[in-house]
């Protein structure tokens, strides 16, 4: 559990309008709760997994969104790989400049490796998914500072 992981969770809370999230991983428990919001509590279906959601209204923007980063989202469901091969260098790293058409990562689906190419020009501000983790459709993978 590190700062990046916690930031990932905060991002997910924003995205799905979650007011509360409980994660337990490798013996470490994290409980994040938004303060002072008017929550419409309907049902409590037990501890939501990282991809489940409970609806809420009007979430405040994060620092990143306020800076107008471009979000590069997953166009499909699959497993995220940062590099072309297990022992190879990652395609991109934070701070790196990218151009349109540059391969950013691989999303593996049904045993096929799909190269995800950038549609924008800019600088990688953040990588939001860890290598080998599953991603769903629309999940934000990279934040890019536009040029």
């Amino acid at each position, binding site marked *: 559990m590190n700062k990046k992981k916690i930031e990932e969770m905060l991002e997910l809370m924003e995205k799905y*309008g979650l007011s509360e999230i409980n994660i337990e991983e490798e013996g470490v428990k994290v409980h994040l709760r938004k303060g002072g919001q008017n929550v419409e509590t309907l049902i409590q279906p037990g501890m939501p*997994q990282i*991809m489940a*959601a409970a*609806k809420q209204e009007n979430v405040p923007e994060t620092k990143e969104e306020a800076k107008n980063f471009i979000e590069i989202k997953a166009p499909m469901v699959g497993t995220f790989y940062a590099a072309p091969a297990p022992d190879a260098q990652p395609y991109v790293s934070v701070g790196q400049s990218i151009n349109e058409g540059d391969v950013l990562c691989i999303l593996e689906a049904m045993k096929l490796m799909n190269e995800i190419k950038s549609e924008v020009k800019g600088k990688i501000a953040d990588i939001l998914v860890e290598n080998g983790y599953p991603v769903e*459709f*629309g999940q934000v993978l990279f934040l890019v500072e536009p040029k």
Partner: protein
Amino acid sequence: MFGKILIANRGEVALRVIRACKEMGIKTVAIFSQADASSLHVRFADEAICVGKAPSGNSYLNIPNIISAAEIADVEAIHPGYGFLAEDAHFAEICESCQIKFIGPTPENIRMMGDKMLAKETMRKSGLPVIPGSKTVVRTKEDALKTAKTLKYPVILKASAGGGGKGMRVCHNDVRLVSSFLTAQREAEAAFGNSDIYIEKYIEAPRHIEIQILADSYGHVIHLGERDCTIQRRHQKLIEESPSPVLNKKLRKKMGDMAVKGAKAAGYVNAGTIEFLLDKNENFYFMEMNTRIQVEHPVTEMVTGLDLIKEQIKIAAADRLRIKQEEVRFEGSAIECRINAEDPDYNFRPSPGLVSHLNLPGGLGVRVDTHVYQGYEISPYYDSMVAKLIAYGKTRKEAIAVMQRALEEMIVGPIKTTIPFHRQVFSNPAFLRGKYSTDFVEKIFFAK
């Protein structure tokens, strides 16, 4: 038994499958489109994965994303629900090749029954009575006229690649037949990419009686009685009941045994439904087979006491179907009303929107299967089903009284729903007597 199942559907049926899984200790994975992020099935599942944008083609019909979701969530089986990919043989095959069990019939079952003419011919060869008609595609209007003469008017033109009531035309004479034939071919081409037309004898004012089948993968097949689905509008079912008010024990056994015979001959596995048309003289004819769990399955569940979704899962997990035909009990009477977000005063036009006021009926004999909650927004992207309201009683009269009472209690607003329409049906003398046929709905509205 499976440890984890992905439900490749949405709305009330996704919830239905999740409930069965929870009771069986099976973990559930929901898939959802971006429009369904706050849907109930997403909340109740153990895991949920977004598979695409709102339109069905991008999400609930998006095979690569759905299979990918199944893989990353590491599920052992997929339940397709009804609609969407439930009767997509190609999808069933892909599941098989990815070592994911498709909870339903085999791809061969789906293909055979999906071709309406082949299905009919297969059933006919197995000894089931079928509607008299052309054995093959009718290619020219001369052939059409010849066939109609043999069958005797009225006849109905149907698209071979069609189904679900689309592209059908009734003809009462030669003149009408010729003009309809050419139009029907063009329509079929446009709708199904296949202009093949076949002709059948048209059964006037029939009743639609379907038999529920359960078959395991070891050849054991049973039937779970009938559902009378005669109350339809434009071939879409609105009300279903079991038992049928017009079936006696003898006829039920005859039709049930026939259905089992047909399912066995087709090598059918898992849950399925054989649809018959019943004419005024108690003659019944095979119409088609639905290779999926159906919307109206709760009606059978109330009368037999069986959980059909659990039976489907058990069959898929290669369990033997332990129930013998003689052990199946039919008790009481159940009726289901499909409550849709449609305005009956304006030709049932869709009425999506926010459900800010919801009161679901309760009490003895009431079952409501719904994904709607107060504050839920019914989106325009999918079907208009809001809820299935099922009433159960010891007798049909009692079930009707429960339904009348439940319909009064039910509030789904401020959108328009078909609740007022159902209340009209449940005060209609012909319906109360059990005497109605497929033209019932049109009759009520012409009488207005």
